């Protein structure tokens, strides 16, 4: 297991190198010039060229790339062209809302979806099952921004139970922190609830037909325990896979939600950086996301070995 972990962590390095190269190249190939954006509409070609030179953008791409990689190796993601702040600092400021929203969303989705899926499988064909399935279809179909504005309209503007927008750090108290996260979490989690509930239902339904479930019933085990210890434990591997994929997708899914609820997270940072062609920021955030994806995959693999003793690396 230790060897497996070490190997997998080492394997992240080539992945990150490839991601870094591709991101760098794509940005240079894409239309748009940060210097022109920075200089504004009234700038003369000379002014733009001066800005380019100051930012080092007039160097050959290979030199730029090597410089960037060299700084990366020292843990320096570069400096934002637009705000002149270090990218690490920008990310550090913005990561908290994103992580907070991602965590509450995934926890809420799991807490709701897994029991829903299990009950739907257990009572499959009943009204509960049909209701869960119908909810799944709706959850998949409804766009995040539509749901977000509907929830804001209902709970924040009409009922006035919750704040409309914005973010309060957990350092300023748990209650203001969580009340501002309730609506974004609800909005974002619907699609994951739909996804996880469906997979849970399908895989629990399959394990409920297995011989060991019959054995458990034959020795007089109660239904709740049959469902949790026998059916769900064995159904866990596909469910965990989907949760892992869900977490990975979530990181990109927060972009829209952060815009709707005006949360100062990484999603907003990325959108702003892309619009301004702020190369170092885009590169830094993309690398961070790639690293997180690799980490999540590793986490899923480790979870497999914990859930199923037959899986060994």
């Amino acid at each position, binding site marked *: 297991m230790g060897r497996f972990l070490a190997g997998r962590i080492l394997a992240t390095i080539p992945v990150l190198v490839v991601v870094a190269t591709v991101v760098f190249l794509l940005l240079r190939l894409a239309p748009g010039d940060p210097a022109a954006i920075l200089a504004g509409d009234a700038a003369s070609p000379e002014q733009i060229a001066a800005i380019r030179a100051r930012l080092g953008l007039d160097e050959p791409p290979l030199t730029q790339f090597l410089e960037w990689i060299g700084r990366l190796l020292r843990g320096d993601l570069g400096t934002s062209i637009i705000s002149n702040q270090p990218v690490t600092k920008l990310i550090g400021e913005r990561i908290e809302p994103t992580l907070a929203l991602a965590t509450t969303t995934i926890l809420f989705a799991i807490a709701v979806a897994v029991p829903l899926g299990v009950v739907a499988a257990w009572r499959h064909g009943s009204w509960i099952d049909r209701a869960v399935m119908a909810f799944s279809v709706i959850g998949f179909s409804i766009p995040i921004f539509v749901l977000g504005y509907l929830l804001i309209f209902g709970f924040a503007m009409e009922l006035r139970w919750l704040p409309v927008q914005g973010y309060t750090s957990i350092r300023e108290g748990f209650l203001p922190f969580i009340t501002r996260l309730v609506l974004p979490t609800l909005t974002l989690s619907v699609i994951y609830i739909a996804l996880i509930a469906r997979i849970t239902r399908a895989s629990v339904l399959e394990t409920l037909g297995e011989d060991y479930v019959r054995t458990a*019933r034959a020795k007089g085990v109660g239904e709740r325990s049959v469902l949790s210890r026998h059916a769900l434990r*064995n159904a866990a591997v596909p469910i965990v896979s989907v949760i892992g994929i869900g977490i990975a997708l979530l990181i990109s899914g927060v972009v829209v939600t952060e815009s709707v609820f005006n949360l100062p997270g990484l999603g907003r940072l990325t959108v702003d950086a892309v619009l301004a062609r702020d190369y170092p920021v885009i590169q830094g955030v993309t690398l961070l996301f790639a690293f997180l994806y690799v980490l999540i995959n590793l986490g899923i693999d480790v979870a497999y070995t914990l859930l199923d003793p037959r899986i060994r690396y």
Partner: protein
Amino acid sequence: MSAPVLDIRNLAVALPRGGERPNAVEGINITVRPREIVCVVGESGSGKSVTAFTTMGLLPPVLKPVAGEILLQGEDTLTASKARLRELRGSRMAMIFQEPMTALNPVMPVGDQIAEALDWHDTKLSRAERSARVLALMDDVRLPRPAEMAKAYPHQLSGGQRQRVMIAMALANEPALIIADEPTTALDVTTQAQILKLMRELQARHDSGILFITHDFGVVAEIADRVVVMRRGKLVEEGTADEVLNHPRDPYTRMLIDAVPSAVPPPARPIPDKAPLVTTRDVEKVYGGGVLGGRTVKALDKVSISLRPGETLGIVGESGSGKSTLARCIARFVDPTAGEIRLGDEEIGQKPQRALHPIRRRIQVIFQDPYRSLNPRRTVGQSIIEGPMNYGTSRAEAWERARDLLKLVDMEPAGLDRYPHEFSGGQRQRIAIARALAMQPEVLIADEAVSALDVSVQKQVLELLEDIREKLGLAMLFITHDLRVAARICDSVVVMLNGKVVEAGPSGEVFGNPQHDYTKALFAAAPGHGRFDKAPRAPAAG
């Protein structure tokens, strides 16, 4: 005589509307007394498992008991509430299943699975008492090193050990009744003999009555006190083991007993003394290893056999003996690691896969499970003509041949336009044989080809194979774990153990006077040993 632990009276269970008959079982009367083993014998579809599951209250919801009562120590389980049934299951009645690999939870240590049976019925046990009970139970079923084994997961145990865990679980609360549903069918003969012995021992020590479901008259002869024979949901005969086995009254029972192949081979057939068609020399197959290293398994170790045209050679052995690996190497589904395989004059063992196209037609295989070996989305005709058409036969000609072949295997040519699911297991195996023959092979490999079939169907398919090899002069490689089947159909046999050939020779010699200890042990372990070994080729009575 003590009061019965189980008394099934006039039980009927309805099938869903539109089934092949209105009731899955009807008019069932079975009693089991303490310390008694009652065998319920029948072929697939006889309703023997439905009876067992009805007793346990574990029927799928589509099946509904409609008449009768099932008294477990006087208490009717048909009218018991769900909660009461749950209490009874595992405490007063317990069940052992056929396939211990799938019947145990793969992600839970076996000790915990045994403990779970205690937890739900005896809540007053302390932790220490509980684990002591688990270890005692494991010791009781002769599991080695119980303390270590309790922490093992099912996949880390052998088939026999897994079945012992199942039995320990069933015994956990000293049930009055144990229902064993084909508990040894998935096991090797030597393991089967040990488990049957264990069940007899345990039954003498505990007061349980056992309802033992089986299709195998060999097992019945080993273990039954009384026998109940079922057919298509009805009882056809009931009596003591001696009465039913030796003096069956019902023609169906007689037919079933006569269908059990004799372990004494028939007189040797004359085999034309020609050059061998298939020979292997020192064939080896090693799994695992490779560039990354790791554990290697030697599935075949210097195996040399030879098969003449017209001859049937049996490869006999238990699971893991390498018999199927040998067949796969000869058919070149897998690449042998070393050694020589010759088909006629041609060396085929080391040929690369792309050079094997002309060879494939000449060697054809019939597999064990006819439910999975035919493509469910293609008609029977499409499956049969596909091979010949790959080798350039025109569609019309291949279709014509397929019609003739279905006639050859005793089926209506109209079946060509139907799909596999419309046929019974025996019919599907006939179709699989026709499919293999469509290639006009020289060598037919039957890999456990009759093992999944009911004994009466098995007899018919064996007769068909005998008939075909006679007509077509085929060389046949017959892979089987069943010594009786091997004795019946093979001209010579090779006995394999752990990838090695331990004994080989003409069937008459190997079966009449086995030399190797393992062969002797194998014969001795065959259930009902000596009981059905009447004069070979006796005309069927009745």
